[in-house]
């Protein structure tokens, strides 16, 4: 039986997180009433002209840098001409021969090995309007028309549905990490078209390429690819030929279907956009933008292990989300005990975020304040129980650890004389427990220490209390 080699390439469209559209100042807000974020430019009215959104360019360049691309020193926009109801001008402003970014790639883990998947290019373009289909009419909402899109074209380096999904997950992680986009396929801010061909093992020329559209989730992409691989395998094994075409994934039927095209392959008649001037980003500006780049998640994990001496597990948890990593890093740098900071973040902080369903940016305790709390505990100014109490107070009422401890007199008492007084009183008041301890019951010591803590309202230094009790009762 012939084995077939699979070749997969992906074209990913990502909506960028800008406030305004690519070529006009309309809001990019999602979910508003139809046709409420529109103007002459994004409606393609006569006399309207596009003006480039600098932030969109920056986000595309940053994405390119994070994905290892070269930033094209000379870049420009072109007109791609075709007619469709979701096209306000019946040409799309996009980039043809001089995209913003070239080359690059991502690393994925496949069977314990690292595999590099190449990226061909990343370019900027504008999104189209949204069509809603009714029985005999279609309605068009132009809110989405003109939203900035970044198109990432991969090299045809993937050889399985698993690799394709791994590529997408890695891409998504990096782009979300960089704050470039939400990359949520279900919400439509990340879309993916797939190109796939099969060829018999040993053949060097690639097989006929089929394009697949209309997948709305990573799972959909996986399933569509698996189906298409099987379909093509069957056709080829049966001696048939694959037609070069575009197919759409039908999630309900679990199959791809040929899309009816009323026309020949498009002649897009690309030409340079005369209304927009060329882009020649100065190296200093690209360097300025590069300086704002976060480390890739993997690099950050490594850094946490190296610089703060954290175990791998801690580093992984902390580096998973950029904002959490930022919080940890700020606190850790201010504290003498980064591991303790890590413990706090991994447990109490993250748990609170989950319970309250808030992002770390909305967390009531700032990294500086956490660092202070950690150091006070480290310096034994307060004990760990008190620290928990102070944490809860900071969360509920705000304030700094030092002030709270001072105001409420929560400082651990480590004055031997003061503790001794309490210890003596407890010994006097609990003859039974003293007897039990002297008879070998270890639990009795715990009880007595607890009583010292209770009487001192939790402020006694528990280690000192325990040591004193031991000393007094060992006679």
């Amino acid at each position: 039986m012939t084995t077939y080699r699979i070749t997969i390439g992906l074209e990913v469209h990502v909506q960028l997180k800008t406030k305004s559209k690519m070529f006009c100042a309309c809001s990019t807000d999602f979910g508003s009433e139809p046709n409420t974020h529109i103007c002459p430019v994004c409606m393609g009215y006569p006399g309207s002209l596009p003006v480039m959104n600098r932030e969109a360019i920056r986000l595309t360049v940053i994405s390119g840098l994070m994905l290892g691309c070269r930033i094209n020193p000379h870049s420009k926009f072109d007109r791609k001409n075709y007619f469709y109801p979701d096209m306000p001008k019946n040409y799309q402003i996009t980039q043809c021969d001089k995209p913003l970014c070239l080359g690059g790639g991502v690393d994925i883990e496949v069977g314990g090995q690292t595999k590099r998947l190449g990226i061909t290019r990343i370019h900027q373009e504008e999104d189209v309007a949204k069509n809603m289909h009714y029985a005999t009419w279609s309605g068009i909402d132009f809110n989405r028309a003109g939203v900035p899109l970044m198109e990432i074209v991969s090299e045809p380096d993937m050889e399985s549905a698993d690799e394709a999904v791994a590529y997408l997950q890695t891409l998504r992680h990096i782009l979300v990490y960089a704050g470039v986009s939400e990359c949520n396929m279900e919400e439509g801010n990340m879309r993916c078209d797939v190109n796939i061909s099969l060829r018999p093992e040993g053949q060097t020329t690639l097989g006929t390429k089929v394009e697949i559209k209309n997948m709305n989730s990573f799972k959909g992409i996986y399933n569509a690819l698996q189906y298409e691989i099987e379909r093509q395998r069957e056709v080829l094994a049966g001696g048939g030929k694959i037609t070069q075409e575009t197919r759409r994934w039908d999630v309900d039927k679990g199959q791809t279907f040929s899309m009816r095209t009323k026309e020949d392959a498009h002649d897009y008649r690309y030409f340079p956009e005369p209304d927009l001037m060329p882009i020649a980003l100065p190296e200093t500006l690209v360097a300025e933008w590069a300086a704002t780049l976060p480390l890739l998640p993997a690099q950050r994990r490594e850094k946490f292990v190296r610089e703060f001496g954290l175990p791998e597990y801690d580093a992984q948890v902390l580096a998973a989300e950029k904002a959490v990593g930022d919080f940890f890093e700020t606190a850790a740098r201010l504290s003498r005990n980064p591991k303790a900071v890590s413990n706090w973040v991994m447990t109490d902080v993250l748990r609170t975020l989950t319970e309250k369903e808030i992002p770390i940016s909305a967390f009531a305790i700032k990294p500086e304040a956490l660092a202070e709390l950690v150091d006070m505990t480290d310096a034994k100014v307060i004990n760990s129980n008190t620290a928990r109490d102070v944490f809860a107070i900071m969360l509920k009422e705000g304030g700094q650890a030092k002030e709270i401890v001072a105001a409420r007199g929560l400082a651990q008492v480590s004055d031997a004389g003061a503790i001794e007084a309490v210890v003596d009183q407890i010994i006097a008041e609990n003859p039974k427990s003293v007897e039990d301890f002297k008879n070998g019951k270890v639990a009795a010591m715990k009880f007595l220490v607890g009583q010292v803590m209770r009487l001192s309202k939790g402020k006694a230094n528990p280690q000192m209390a325990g040591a004193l009790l031991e000393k007094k009762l060992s006679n």
Partner: protein
Amino acid sequence: MLNTFTIHEVLDRLNRGECRSEDVVRSVLDAIQRTDGRIHGYLAINEADALEQARAADTARSNGAKGRLLGVPIAVKDVLNVKGQPCTCGSKILKGYISPYDATAIARLRDEGAVFVGRTNMDEFAMGSTTENSAYGITRNPWNLDCVPGGSSGGSAAVVAADECVAALGSDTGGSVRQPASFCGCVGLKPTYGRISRYGLTAYASSLDQIGPITKDVRDAALLLQIMAGVDAADSTTLPSTVPDYQSALTKDLKGVTVGLPKEYFVGGLDPEVERCVQEAIEVCRQLGAKVVEVSLPNTRVAVDTYYIIAPAEASANLSRFDGVRYGYRAAGAADPLDLYKKSRAEGFGPEVKRRIILGTYVLSSGYYDAFYLRAQKVRTLIRRDFEAAFKQCTVILSPVASTPAYRIGQNSADPLQMYLGDIFTVPVNLAGICGLSVPCGMASGKLPVGLQVMGPALGEEAILRTGYAFEQATQWRSYRSGIAKENAGSQVRL
């Protein structure tokens, strides 16, 4: 007879309190009433609105407002978006469309108090040289009603020449302000590309279009340019260069000015009357102190081809938005969007527009892009270099605007190529992105105006306005009025 004055003459009287803006506008509206039935320069007038604007200007003036055009009525070519007004572009496909915004140039004039009195006729989507391509009927030349006023801003030129307004706006892509100005005996200016914002100007050819004033004298053109010029955040192609004081460039002599005459433009084929008028004009410039030298623009012979590849190509994309979906004309009975486009565009566009869309689509299409569009853009560089080299030897270049005076109506309709070749003197200016002025310089056989073209380097408006002004002040051509304009002056004849 307030309608017969220039902008500065009207402003003088308004500022001295000798008349009100309402009087000026009424005078213009009366002239339109008397005349436009024969000329058909206007496509739309809103009398009530114009008078309301005029009254508002009068009130503002009495409250101390100081707008540089306060209360002055301006006619607008129907290609410019003016909020709340129609903007047909001379086409059926934009019937019913109401502009929801002001073009930047309009907004700047509005800020200075201009009164927008009406929309003028034009070749459909600015494609044409006679205004015969309008879907709303032809415009006639006030000097001879059997002749065309030129195009594509024929309506604007005709109404200025007939004193049916004080001044007008046109647009120029291949000569569409300069040529009708020449045919109608007015002043017409095409600024340097990027000098005036194109935001709100319905696009024909994006890399060639410019808005331009059509006026009764050079001083008025300088004023309108002054107000409209300057960088605009809404148009990425506008120049960031500061706008100089154009009025102060106007002098009555041409000392220190070197005038270049391109040898390729004077090789014969010119109507003898046009040749005579232009040569006499050159002589006047000499008298005024200008030095005259010969220059060469070697790529002149391919300018028309270059233009008629690039302009239709850009236009084919710019006109794709006219599809019956979001505004304008929509054909009935379409089964699906594809059908909708093909029917609406077939029914909504006239033949010249269709021709140019097809030509433009062709030169961009796969297999032809390199041979035509790309090649034309390269030749364009050569044409621009020609001018850069020539302007090293002279301050301004003089030439005819057209090789003949105004054509008879219907004369060129059969042969589009013939029509295109008539643009030989004007298209190079747009291709090179430089500035050009048309100023009246004589009468052919005493009956039809002839214009002199003054070309200047990029951002050389001061030089061409100076040359035009000095020439105008030394001659009597600006006082020549057509028969219709004389009617509109009442019994008094202006001198």
